[in-house]
Protein backbone atom coordinates (compact mmCIF):
# COMPACT_ATOMS: atom_id res chain seq x y z
CA UNK A 1 0.00 0.00 0.00
CA UNK A 2 2.54 2.57 1.13
CA UNK A 3 5.02 1.05 -1.32
CA UNK A 4 2.66 1.88 -4.15
CA UNK A 5 2.44 5.48 -3.00
CA UNK A 6 6.20 5.79 -2.96
CA UNK A 7 6.49 4.22 -6.40
CA UNK A 8 3.89 6.64 -7.72
CA UNK A 9 5.72 9.56 -6.17
CA UNK A 10 9.04 8.44 -7.67
CA UNK A 11 7.52 7.93 -11.11
CA UNK A 12 5.89 11.34 -11.02
CA UNK A 13 9.03 13.18 -9.98
CA UNK A 14 11.06 11.23 -12.53
CA UNK A 15 8.63 12.08 -15.31
CA UNK A 16 8.56 15.73 -14.40
CA UNK A 17 12.32 15.92 -14.28
CA UNK A 18 12.58 14.30 -17.70
CA UNK A 19 10.10 16.71 -19.23
CA UNK A 20 11.96 19.68 -17.79
CA UNK A 21 15.29 18.43 -19.12
CA UNK A 22 13.81 17.75 -22.55
CA UNK A 23 12.38 21.27 -22.70
CA UNK A 24 15.75 22.74 -21.76
CA UNK A 25 17.57 20.51 -24.21
CA UNK A 26 15.19 21.62 -26.92
CA UNK A 27 16.25 25.23 -26.50
CA UNK A 28 19.91 24.25 -26.67
CA UNK A 29 19.41 22.01 -29.71
CA UNK A 30 17.55 24.76 -31.55
CA UNK A 31 20.28 27.27 -30.81
CA UNK A 32 22.93 24.80 -31.91
CA UNK A 33 21.07 23.95 -35.13
CA UNK A 34 20.70 27.59 -36.07
CA UNK A 35 24.33 28.20 -35.35
CA UNK A 36 25.41 25.29 -37.57
CA UNK A 37 23.24 26.54 -40.41
CA UNK A 38 24.56 30.08 -40.17
CA UNK A 39 28.19 28.98 -39.92
CA UNK A 40 28.88 29.48 -43.69
CA UNK A 41 28.03 33.15 -43.64
CA UNK A 42 29.76 33.70 -40.33
CA UNK A 43 32.97 32.22 -41.74
CA UNK A 44 32.77 34.47 -44.79
CA UNK A 45 31.76 37.79 -43.23
CA UNK A 46 32.84 38.87 -39.74
CA UNK A 47 30.03 39.08 -37.19
CA UNK A 48 30.55 42.77 -36.57
CA UNK A 49 30.23 43.60 -40.28
CA UNK A 50 27.07 41.52 -40.55
CA UNK A 51 25.50 43.49 -37.73
CA UNK A 52 26.60 46.99 -38.67
CA UNK A 53 26.59 46.98 -42.46
CA UNK A 54 23.53 48.55 -44.11
CA UNK A 55 23.78 47.11 -47.61
CA UNK A 56 21.47 44.21 -48.32
CA UNK A 57 22.17 42.86 -51.81
CA UNK A 58 22.08 39.07 -51.62
CA UNK A 59 22.94 38.59 -55.27
CA UNK A 60 26.11 40.62 -54.88
CA UNK A 61 26.89 38.67 -51.73
CA UNK A 62 26.30 41.72 -49.53
CA UNK A 63 24.51 40.85 -46.33
CA UNK A 64 24.20 43.81 -44.01
CA UNK A 65 21.70 43.21 -41.23
CA UNK A 66 21.71 46.67 -39.74
CA UNK A 67 18.43 47.76 -41.41
CA UNK A 68 16.66 44.69 -40.07
CA UNK A 69 18.03 45.10 -36.57
CA UNK A 70 16.96 48.75 -36.54
CA UNK A 71 13.58 47.89 -38.02
CA UNK A 72 12.97 45.37 -35.25
CA UNK A 73 14.03 47.80 -32.55
CA UNK A 74 11.96 50.69 -33.92
CA UNK A 75 8.79 48.68 -34.28
CA UNK A 76 9.12 47.10 -30.85
CA UNK A 77 9.89 50.37 -29.12
CA UNK A 78 6.97 52.16 -30.78
CA UNK A 79 4.64 49.31 -29.85
CA UNK A 80 5.69 49.39 -26.21
CA UNK A 81 5.57 53.18 -25.99
CA UNK A 82 1.97 53.13 -27.20
CA UNK A 83 0.78 50.01 -25.40
CA UNK A 84 2.33 50.49 -21.97
CA UNK A 85 0.54 53.65 -20.81
CA UNK A 86 -2.73 52.56 -22.41
CA UNK A 87 -2.66 49.15 -20.76
CA UNK A 88 -1.65 50.56 -17.39
CA UNK A 89 -4.50 53.06 -17.40
CA UNK A 90 -6.98 50.44 -18.60
CA UNK A 91 -5.95 47.98 -15.91
CA UNK A 92 -6.04 50.64 -13.19
CA UNK A 93 -9.47 51.71 -14.36
CA UNK A 94 -10.75 48.13 -14.37
CA UNK A 95 -9.41 47.11 -10.99
CA UNK A 96 -9.64 50.38 -9.04
CA UNK A 97 -12.56 52.31 -10.51
CA UNK A 98 -14.99 50.16 -12.45
CA UNK A 99 -17.97 48.26 -11.11
CA UNK A 100 -18.24 44.52 -11.25
CA UNK A 101 -20.54 44.38 -14.26
CA UNK A 102 -18.09 46.40 -16.36
CA UNK A 103 -15.37 43.92 -15.52
CA UNK A 104 -17.69 41.05 -16.36
CA UNK A 105 -17.98 42.41 -19.89
CA UNK A 106 -14.44 43.58 -20.42
CA UNK A 107 -12.46 40.57 -19.17
CA UNK A 108 -13.90 38.07 -21.67
CA UNK A 109 -13.53 40.66 -24.43
CA UNK A 110 -9.85 40.98 -23.57
CA UNK A 111 -9.40 37.23 -23.71
CA UNK A 112 -10.98 37.14 -27.14
CA UNK A 113 -8.77 39.97 -28.37
CA UNK A 114 -5.69 38.22 -27.02
CA UNK A 115 -6.51 35.00 -28.83
CA UNK A 116 -7.34 36.47 -32.27
CA UNK A 117 -4.96 35.18 -34.95
CA UNK A 118 -2.41 37.81 -35.79
CA UNK A 119 -3.31 37.81 -39.49
CA UNK A 120 -6.58 39.47 -38.51
CA UNK A 121 -4.67 42.30 -36.88
CA UNK A 122 -2.64 42.50 -40.07
CA UNK A 123 -5.75 42.84 -42.20
CA UNK A 124 -7.14 45.47 -39.87
CA UNK A 125 -3.82 47.28 -40.12
CA UNK A 126 -3.83 47.34 -43.93
CA UNK A 127 -7.48 48.35 -44.13
CA UNK A 128 -7.55 50.97 -41.40
CA UNK A 129 -4.17 52.01 -40.03
CA UNK A 130 -2.23 52.21 -43.29
CA UNK A 131 -4.74 54.48 -45.11
CA UNK A 132 -5.18 56.60 -41.98
CA UNK A 133 -1.45 57.23 -41.82
CA UNK A 134 -1.00 57.95 -45.51
CA UNK A 135 -4.12 60.17 -45.85
CA UNK A 136 -4.56 61.83 -42.48
CA UNK A 137 -1.48 61.73 -40.31
CA UNK A 138 1.57 61.70 -42.59
CA UNK A 139 0.63 64.84 -44.62
CA UNK A 140 1.19 66.92 -41.47
CA UNK A 141 4.78 65.75 -41.22
CA UNK A 142 6.12 64.52 -44.58
CA UNK A 143 5.32 65.21 -48.23
CA UNK A 144 4.50 61.64 -49.14
CA UNK A 145 3.98 58.33 -47.40
CA UNK A 146 2.44 55.09 -48.62
CA UNK A 147 1.21 54.39 -45.12
CA UNK A 148 3.15 51.12 -45.04
CA UNK A 149 5.44 52.44 -42.36
CA UNK A 150 7.30 51.75 -39.15
CA UNK A 151 4.54 53.64 -37.38
CA UNK A 152 1.83 51.41 -38.86
CA UNK A 153 3.72 48.32 -37.74
CA UNK A 154 4.22 49.82 -34.28
CA UNK A 155 0.54 50.68 -33.94
CA UNK A 156 -0.67 47.26 -35.07
CA UNK A 157 1.80 45.56 -32.79
CA UNK A 158 0.80 47.73 -29.84
CA UNK A 159 -2.84 46.79 -30.32
CA UNK A 160 -1.79 43.15 -30.40
CA UNK A 161 0.13 43.23 -27.14
CA UNK A 162 -2.40 45.49 -25.43
CA UNK A 163 -4.84 42.76 -24.31
CA UNK A 164 -1.95 40.61 -23.12
CA UNK A 165 -0.56 43.47 -21.05
CA UNK A 166 -3.96 44.46 -19.68
CA UNK A 167 -4.76 40.89 -18.54
CA UNK A 168 -1.36 40.55 -16.91
CA UNK A 169 -1.70 43.90 -15.15
CA UNK A 170 -5.25 43.16 -14.02
CA UNK A 171 -4.04 39.90 -12.55
CA UNK A 172 -1.26 41.75 -10.72
CA UNK A 173 -3.44 44.54 -9.40
CA UNK A 174 -6.17 42.25 -8.12
CA UNK A 175 -3.55 40.30 -6.19
CA UNK A 176 -2.79 43.43 -4.14
CA UNK A 177 -4.74 42.89 -0.92
CA UNK A 178 -7.78 45.03 -0.24
CA UNK A 179 -6.56 45.60 3.29
CA UNK A 180 -3.60 47.45 1.84
CA UNK A 181 -5.90 49.63 -0.26
CA UNK A 182 -8.13 50.25 2.75
CA UNK A 183 -5.13 51.43 4.78
CA UNK A 184 -4.42 54.00 2.12
CA UNK A 185 -8.05 55.10 1.81
CA UNK A 186 -8.32 55.33 5.59
CA UNK A 187 -5.55 57.93 5.59
CA UNK A 188 -7.67 60.02 3.26
CA UNK A 189 -6.03 59.04 -0.02
CA UNK A 190 -8.07 59.29 -3.21
CA UNK A 191 -8.41 56.37 -5.56
CA UNK A 192 -5.81 57.77 -7.90
CA UNK A 193 -3.33 58.35 -5.07
CA UNK A 194 -3.94 54.82 -3.85
CA UNK A 195 -3.54 53.38 -7.34
CA UNK A 196 -0.25 55.19 -7.83
CA UNK A 197 1.41 54.87 -4.46
CA UNK A 198 0.08 51.54 -3.32
CA UNK A 199 -1.22 49.37 -6.14
CA UNK A 200 1.26 50.31 -8.88
CA UNK A 201 4.15 50.49 -6.49
CA UNK A 202 3.39 47.13 -4.98
CA UNK A 203 3.09 45.54 -8.45
CA UNK A 204 6.20 47.15 -9.89
CA UNK A 205 8.28 43.96 -10.23
CA UNK A 206 5.33 42.24 -11.86
CA UNK A 207 4.73 45.17 -14.21
CA UNK A 208 8.34 44.95 -15.27
CA UNK A 209 8.12 41.20 -15.86
CA UNK A 210 4.92 41.65 -17.89
CA UNK A 211 6.53 44.27 -20.10
CA UNK A 212 9.43 41.90 -20.74
CA UNK A 213 6.99 39.20 -21.73
CA UNK A 214 5.17 41.58 -24.06
CA UNK A 215 8.42 42.75 -25.65
CA UNK A 216 9.50 39.17 -26.26
CA UNK A 217 6.19 38.59 -27.94
CA UNK A 218 6.55 41.79 -29.98
CA UNK A 219 10.09 40.96 -31.08
CA UNK A 220 8.96 37.75 -32.66
CA UNK A 221 5.62 38.84 -34.10
CA UNK A 222 5.71 38.21 -37.83
CA UNK A 223 2.60 38.16 -39.97
CA UNK A 224 0.76 41.28 -38.82
CA UNK A 225 3.93 43.36 -38.92
CA UNK A 226 4.96 42.01 -42.29
CA UNK A 227 1.62 43.09 -43.76
CA UNK A 228 1.97 46.77 -42.83
CA UNK A 229 5.66 47.60 -42.40
CA UNK A 230 6.52 48.12 -46.07
CA UNK A 231 9.32 45.51 -46.15
CA UNK A 232 12.02 47.88 -47.33
CA UNK A 233 15.55 46.82 -46.36
CA UNK A 234 16.76 50.27 -45.34
CA UNK A 235 17.37 51.83 -41.96
CA UNK A 236 14.25 53.88 -41.07
CA UNK A 237 15.02 57.50 -40.23
CA UNK A 238 11.55 58.50 -39.15
CA UNK A 239 8.38 56.70 -38.15
CA UNK A 240 7.02 57.46 -41.63
CA UNK A 241 9.72 55.39 -43.34
CA UNK A 242 9.14 51.80 -44.24
CA UNK A 243 11.11 49.19 -42.38
CA UNK A 244 11.85 45.49 -42.40
CA UNK A 245 12.02 43.67 -39.07
CA UNK A 246 13.91 40.39 -38.80
CA UNK A 247 10.91 38.02 -38.52
CA UNK A 248 9.41 39.53 -41.68
CA UNK A 249 12.71 39.04 -43.49
CA UNK A 250 12.77 35.36 -42.67
CA UNK A 251 9.11 34.74 -43.45
CA UNK A 252 9.19 36.61 -46.77
CA UNK A 253 12.26 34.96 -48.18
CA UNK A 254 12.61 31.55 -46.70
CA UNK A 255 11.96 28.83 -49.23
CA UNK A 256 12.44 31.07 -52.26
CA UNK A 257 16.10 31.78 -52.25
CA UNK A 258 17.48 28.45 -51.28
CA UNK A 259 19.31 28.17 -54.61
CA UNK A 260 21.80 30.65 -53.19
CA UNK A 261 23.52 28.79 -50.34
CA UNK A 262 24.84 31.98 -48.81
CA UNK A 263 21.36 33.48 -48.81
CA UNK A 264 19.96 30.55 -46.93
CA UNK A 265 22.75 30.79 -44.43
CA UNK A 266 22.05 34.52 -44.06
CA UNK A 267 18.42 33.84 -43.24
CA UNK A 268 19.47 31.24 -40.70
CA UNK A 269 21.76 33.83 -39.19
CA UNK A 270 18.78 36.17 -38.97
CA UNK A 271 16.89 33.49 -37.07
CA UNK A 272 19.86 32.92 -34.79
CA UNK A 273 20.05 36.66 -34.16
CA UNK A 274 16.39 36.78 -33.14
CA UNK A 275 16.85 33.72 -30.97
CA UNK A 276 19.85 35.18 -29.16
CA UNK A 277 18.24 38.60 -28.74
CA UNK A 278 15.11 37.16 -27.14
CA UNK A 279 17.16 34.83 -24.96
CA UNK A 280 19.59 37.49 -23.75
CA UNK A 281 16.77 39.94 -23.26
CA UNK A 282 14.87 37.50 -21.07
CA UNK A 283 17.89 36.53 -19.02
CA UNK A 284 18.97 40.14 -18.52
CA UNK A 285 15.51 41.18 -17.44
CA UNK A 286 15.47 38.36 -14.95
CA UNK A 287 18.55 39.85 -13.33
CA UNK A 288 16.99 43.30 -13.24
CA UNK A 289 13.82 41.82 -11.82
CA UNK A 290 15.72 40.25 -8.98
CA UNK A 291 17.24 43.65 -8.20
CA UNK A 292 13.80 45.28 -8.12
CA UNK A 293 12.32 42.59 -5.91
CA UNK A 294 15.10 42.97 -3.40
CA UNK A 295 14.26 46.63 -2.95
Amino acid sequence: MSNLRIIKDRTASGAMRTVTIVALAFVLVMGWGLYRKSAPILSEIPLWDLLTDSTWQPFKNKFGFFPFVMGTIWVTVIAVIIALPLSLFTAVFLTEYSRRFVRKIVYPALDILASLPSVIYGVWGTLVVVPWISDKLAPYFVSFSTGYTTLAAGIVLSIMILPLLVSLFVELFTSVSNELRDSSYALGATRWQTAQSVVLRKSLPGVFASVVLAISRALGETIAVLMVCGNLPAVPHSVFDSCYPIPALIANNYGEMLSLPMYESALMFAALLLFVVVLVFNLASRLVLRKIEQK
Partner: protein
Amino acid sequence: MRKFILRKFFANDNNEAFVPDAKFKHPDVAPELTVDHFNLSIEGSPILKDVSVTIPANKITCIIGPSGCGKSTLLKSLNRLSDTIEGVKTTGDIRIGDTSIANCSMSDLVELRRRIGLVPQRPTPLPMSIYGNIAYGCKIHGVSSRRELRKIVRHYLKVVGLWDEVKDRLTSPATKLSIGQQQRLCLARSLAVEPEFILADEATSALDPVSSKIVEDLFVKLKEQYSIVMVTHTLRQALRIADYVIFIYMGEVIEVGDAQQVFKNPKNELTQKYLSGAIS
Protein backbone atom coordinates in the same frame (compact mmCIF):
# COMPACT_ATOMS: atom_id res chain seq x y z
CA MET B 1 22.83 59.84 -0.22
CA ARG B 2 19.31 60.27 1.03
CA LYS B 3 20.07 57.98 3.88
CA PHE B 4 23.01 60.14 4.83
CA ILE B 5 21.02 63.35 4.71
CA LEU B 6 18.30 61.82 6.86
CA ARG B 7 20.75 60.63 9.45
CA LYS B 8 22.52 63.96 9.56
CA PHE B 9 19.27 65.79 10.01
CA PHE B 10 18.14 63.61 12.83
CA ALA B 11 21.51 63.78 14.51
CA ASN B 12 21.52 67.58 14.57
CA ASP B 13 18.01 67.96 15.73
CA ASN B 14 17.49 68.44 19.42
CA ASN B 15 14.35 67.53 21.28
CA GLU B 16 12.26 70.62 20.76
CA ALA B 17 8.57 70.19 21.56
CA PHE B 18 6.58 68.75 18.68
CA VAL B 19 3.69 70.78 17.29
CA PRO B 20 1.50 69.13 14.66
CA ASP B 21 0.99 70.91 11.37
CA ALA B 22 -1.70 73.60 11.51
CA LYS B 23 -3.76 71.57 9.01
CA PHE B 24 -3.96 68.74 11.51
CA LYS B 25 -5.04 70.68 14.57
CA HIS B 26 -7.70 69.00 16.70
CA PRO B 27 -10.87 70.97 17.42
CA ASP B 28 -11.02 72.48 20.91
CA VAL B 29 -13.68 70.08 22.09
CA ALA B 30 -13.08 66.46 21.12
CA PRO B 31 -16.08 65.33 19.05
CA GLU B 32 -18.24 62.26 19.59
CA LEU B 33 -19.18 59.78 16.89
CA THR B 34 -22.92 59.46 16.55
CA VAL B 35 -24.50 56.53 14.75
CA ASP B 36 -28.09 57.43 14.04
CA HIS B 37 -30.63 54.81 12.93
CA PHE B 38 -28.02 53.33 10.65
CA ASN B 39 -28.91 50.39 8.40
CA LEU B 40 -26.53 48.62 6.07
CA SER B 41 -27.30 45.87 3.60
CA ILE B 42 -25.06 43.98 1.23
CA GLU B 43 -26.72 42.80 -1.95
CA GLY B 44 -30.12 43.03 -0.32
CA SER B 45 -29.35 41.12 2.86
CA PRO B 46 -29.38 43.32 5.97
CA ILE B 47 -26.12 43.29 7.92
CA LEU B 48 -26.63 46.18 10.34
CA LYS B 49 -30.13 46.88 11.57
CA ASP B 50 -31.18 50.25 12.97
CA VAL B 51 -27.95 50.86 14.83
CA SER B 52 -28.01 53.92 17.11
CA VAL B 53 -25.09 54.52 19.45
CA THR B 54 -22.96 57.43 20.55
CA ILE B 55 -19.27 56.75 20.84
CA PRO B 56 -17.74 58.99 23.51
CA ALA B 57 -14.60 61.08 23.08
CA ASN B 58 -11.29 60.26 24.76
CA LYS B 59 -12.39 56.80 25.80
CA ILE B 60 -11.66 53.31 24.61
CA THR B 61 -14.86 51.89 23.21
CA CYS B 62 -14.90 48.15 22.58
CA ILE B 63 -17.30 46.58 20.12
CA ILE B 64 -17.93 42.98 21.13
CA GLY B 65 -20.17 40.23 19.83
CA PRO B 66 -20.09 36.80 18.24
CA SER B 67 -18.37 36.15 14.92
CA GLY B 68 -20.26 37.43 11.90
CA CYS B 69 -22.51 39.76 13.90
CA GLY B 70 -21.34 42.84 12.00
CA LYS B 71 -18.61 44.33 14.18
CA SER B 72 -16.17 44.87 11.34
CA THR B 73 -18.92 46.19 9.12
CA LEU B 74 -19.93 48.76 11.73
CA LEU B 75 -16.32 49.80 12.15
CA LYS B 76 -15.88 50.15 8.40
CA SER B 77 -19.01 52.26 8.20
CA LEU B 78 -17.50 54.71 10.66
CA ASN B 79 -14.95 55.87 8.08
CA ARG B 80 -16.95 54.75 5.05
CA LEU B 81 -14.54 52.04 4.01
CA SER B 82 -17.80 50.16 3.64
CA ASP B 83 -18.08 52.00 0.31
CA THR B 84 -15.63 49.55 -1.19
CA ILE B 85 -17.91 46.56 -0.57
CA GLU B 86 -19.69 45.65 -3.79
CA GLY B 87 -23.50 45.94 -3.55
CA VAL B 88 -23.62 47.91 -0.30
CA LYS B 89 -26.58 50.17 0.58
CA THR B 90 -27.03 52.30 3.68
CA THR B 91 -29.70 54.44 5.29
CA GLY B 92 -29.53 56.57 8.40
CA ASP B 93 -26.57 58.68 9.38
CA ILE B 94 -23.20 58.64 11.08
CA ARG B 95 -21.72 61.92 12.29
CA ILE B 96 -18.43 63.07 13.72
CA GLY B 97 -19.37 66.06 15.83
CA ASP B 98 -21.98 67.70 13.64
CA THR B 99 -20.51 66.61 10.31
CA SER B 100 -22.18 63.76 8.48
CA ILE B 101 -19.89 60.97 7.37
CA ALA B 102 -22.43 58.59 5.93
CA ASN B 103 -23.92 61.16 3.58
CA CYS B 104 -21.03 63.45 2.66
CA SER B 105 -19.50 64.12 -0.73
CA MET B 106 -16.42 62.33 -1.99
CA SER B 107 -14.26 65.44 -1.54
CA ASP B 108 -15.33 65.92 2.07
CA LEU B 109 -14.83 62.24 2.73
CA VAL B 110 -11.10 62.51 2.07
CA GLU B 111 -10.76 65.04 4.89
CA LEU B 112 -13.15 63.13 7.17
CA ARG B 113 -11.15 59.96 6.73
CA ARG B 114 -8.07 61.83 7.85
CA ARG B 115 -9.91 62.61 11.09
CA ILE B 116 -10.66 58.92 11.65
CA GLY B 117 -7.58 56.71 11.62
CA LEU B 118 -7.48 52.96 11.09
CA VAL B 119 -5.28 50.23 12.50
CA PRO B 120 -5.96 47.07 10.52
CA GLN B 121 -6.25 43.52 11.79
CA ARG B 122 -3.10 42.32 10.14
CA PRO B 123 -0.37 44.93 9.71
CA THR B 124 -0.36 46.44 6.22
CA PRO B 125 2.93 48.20 5.60
CA LEU B 126 2.64 50.20 2.39
CA PRO B 127 5.14 49.23 -0.31
CA MET B 128 7.64 51.92 0.63
CA SER B 129 10.28 52.68 3.24
CA ILE B 130 9.61 53.04 6.95
CA TYR B 131 9.98 56.77 6.51
CA GLY B 132 7.74 56.73 3.44
CA ASN B 133 4.99 54.89 5.28
CA ILE B 134 4.63 57.62 7.86
CA ALA B 135 5.19 60.51 5.50
CA TYR B 136 2.61 59.14 3.04
CA GLY B 137 -0.52 60.40 4.81
CA CYS B 138 1.00 63.81 5.43
CA LYS B 139 2.03 64.19 1.81
CA ILE B 140 -1.48 63.27 0.70
CA HIS B 141 -2.82 66.10 2.80
CA GLY B 142 -0.37 68.59 1.45
CA VAL B 143 2.54 68.66 3.89
CA SER B 144 5.48 68.93 1.52
CA SER B 145 8.33 70.46 3.49
CA ARG B 146 11.03 67.85 3.99
CA ARG B 147 11.98 69.38 7.29
CA GLU B 148 8.42 69.17 8.53
CA LEU B 149 8.02 65.58 7.34
CA ARG B 150 11.17 64.48 9.12
CA LYS B 151 9.96 66.01 12.36
CA ILE B 152 6.64 64.23 11.97
CA VAL B 153 8.24 60.87 11.22
CA ARG B 154 10.53 61.09 14.19
CA HIS B 155 7.84 62.23 16.56
CA TYR B 156 5.32 59.51 15.78
CA LEU B 157 7.90 56.78 15.69
CA LYS B 158 8.79 57.90 19.19
CA VAL B 159 5.15 57.90 20.25
CA VAL B 160 4.80 54.22 19.34
CA GLY B 161 8.21 53.39 20.78
CA LEU B 162 9.70 52.40 17.45
CA TRP B 163 12.21 55.19 17.06
CA ASP B 164 15.18 53.60 18.76
CA GLU B 165 14.56 50.33 16.96
CA VAL B 166 14.43 51.79 13.45
CA LYS B 167 16.20 55.15 13.45
CA ASP B 168 19.18 53.73 11.58
CA ARG B 169 17.18 52.14 8.80
CA LEU B 170 14.43 54.61 8.02
CA THR B 171 14.97 54.14 4.30
CA SER B 172 14.72 50.36 4.31
CA PRO B 173 11.44 48.72 3.27
CA ALA B 174 8.78 48.61 5.95
CA THR B 175 8.04 44.98 5.11
CA LYS B 176 11.40 44.02 6.64
CA LEU B 177 10.15 44.88 10.13
CA SER B 178 8.78 42.21 12.44
CA ILE B 179 5.01 41.80 12.56
CA GLY B 180 4.77 43.52 15.92
CA GLN B 181 6.91 46.42 14.70
CA GLN B 182 4.82 46.64 11.53
CA GLN B 183 1.68 47.01 13.56
CA ARG B 184 3.18 49.82 15.60
CA LEU B 185 4.28 51.40 12.34
CA CYS B 186 0.68 51.23 11.12
CA LEU B 187 -0.41 52.96 14.30
CA ALA B 188 2.24 55.65 13.88
CA ARG B 189 1.18 56.06 10.28
CA SER B 190 -2.42 56.79 11.21
CA LEU B 191 -1.39 59.04 14.09
CA ALA B 192 0.80 61.09 11.75
CA VAL B 193 -2.23 62.78 10.18
CA GLU B 194 -3.56 63.55 13.67
CA PRO B 195 -6.93 61.83 13.57
CA GLU B 196 -9.41 62.48 16.34
CA PHE B 197 -10.66 58.90 16.28
CA ILE B 198 -8.70 55.69 15.89
CA LEU B 199 -10.47 52.59 14.68
CA ALA B 200 -8.87 49.22 15.35
CA ASP B 201 -10.30 45.93 14.12
CA GLU B 202 -8.78 43.18 16.27
CA ALA B 203 -5.53 45.05 15.95
CA THR B 204 -3.68 42.73 18.29
CA SER B 205 -5.02 39.38 17.11
CA ALA B 206 -2.16 38.73 14.70
CA LEU B 207 0.53 39.66 17.19
CA ASP B 208 2.56 37.73 19.73
CA PRO B 209 1.65 38.31 23.40
CA VAL B 210 4.43 40.80 24.04
CA SER B 211 3.74 42.94 20.96
CA SER B 212 0.06 42.64 21.70
CA LYS B 213 0.62 44.04 25.20
CA ILE B 214 2.70 46.91 23.81
CA VAL B 215 -0.04 47.92 21.38
CA GLU B 216 -2.68 47.57 24.07
CA ASP B 217 -0.74 49.82 26.43
CA LEU B 218 -0.30 52.33 23.63
CA PHE B 219 -4.04 52.54 23.19
CA VAL B 220 -4.48 53.23 26.87
CA LYS B 221 -1.86 55.95 26.71
CA LEU B 222 -3.31 57.45 23.54
CA LYS B 223 -6.85 57.86 24.82
CA GLU B 224 -5.87 61.14 26.48
CA GLN B 225 -5.62 62.74 23.08
CA TYR B 226 -7.56 60.42 20.83
CA SER B 227 -10.84 58.55 20.97
CA ILE B 228 -10.43 54.87 20.28
CA VAL B 229 -12.93 52.39 18.89
CA MET B 230 -11.79 48.80 18.81
CA VAL B 231 -13.29 45.51 17.84
CA THR B 232 -12.06 42.66 19.94
CA HIS B 233 -12.67 38.96 20.25
CA THR B 234 -10.86 38.56 23.52
CA LEU B 235 -13.18 39.48 26.32
CA ARG B 236 -10.25 39.64 28.70
CA GLN B 237 -8.73 42.37 26.57
CA ALA B 238 -12.00 44.26 26.61
CA LEU B 239 -12.17 43.87 30.38
CA ARG B 240 -8.65 45.21 30.77
CA ILE B 241 -8.92 48.35 28.69
CA ALA B 242 -12.50 49.19 27.71
CA ASP B 243 -14.20 52.24 29.14
CA TYR B 244 -17.31 51.81 27.09
CA VAL B 245 -18.79 48.71 25.49
CA ILE B 246 -21.11 48.05 22.56
CA PHE B 247 -22.50 44.55 22.31
CA ILE B 248 -23.82 43.54 18.89
CA TYR B 249 -25.78 40.43 18.07
CA MET B 250 -26.92 39.54 14.55
CA GLY B 251 -26.51 43.10 13.29
CA GLU B 252 -28.38 44.73 16.14
CA VAL B 253 -27.01 46.68 19.06
CA ILE B 254 -28.18 44.78 22.13
CA GLU B 255 -26.48 46.63 24.91
CA VAL B 256 -24.38 49.77 25.27
CA GLY B 257 -22.84 51.25 28.36
CA ASP B 258 -19.88 51.82 30.62
CA ALA B 259 -17.58 48.83 30.69
CA GLN B 260 -18.03 48.35 34.42
CA GLN B 261 -21.78 48.21 34.12
CA VAL B 262 -21.92 45.99 31.02
CA PHE B 263 -19.41 43.49 32.33
CA LYS B 264 -20.58 43.40 35.94
CA ASN B 265 -24.32 43.92 35.54
CA PRO B 266 -25.41 43.23 32.00
CA LYS B 267 -29.03 44.22 31.62
CA ASN B 268 -29.83 42.10 28.62
CA GLU B 269 -30.12 38.34 28.76
CA LEU B 270 -28.17 37.92 25.48
CA THR B 271 -25.29 39.94 26.87
CA GLN B 272 -25.23 37.78 29.97
CA LYS B 273 -25.16 34.66 27.83
CA TYR B 274 -22.41 36.03 25.62
CA LEU B 275 -20.26 37.08 28.55
CA SER B 276 -20.67 33.72 30.22
CA GLY B 277 -19.60 32.02 27.02
CA ALA B 278 -22.93 30.45 26.20
CA ILE B 279 -23.00 32.04 22.75
CA SER B 280 -19.94 32.79 20.70
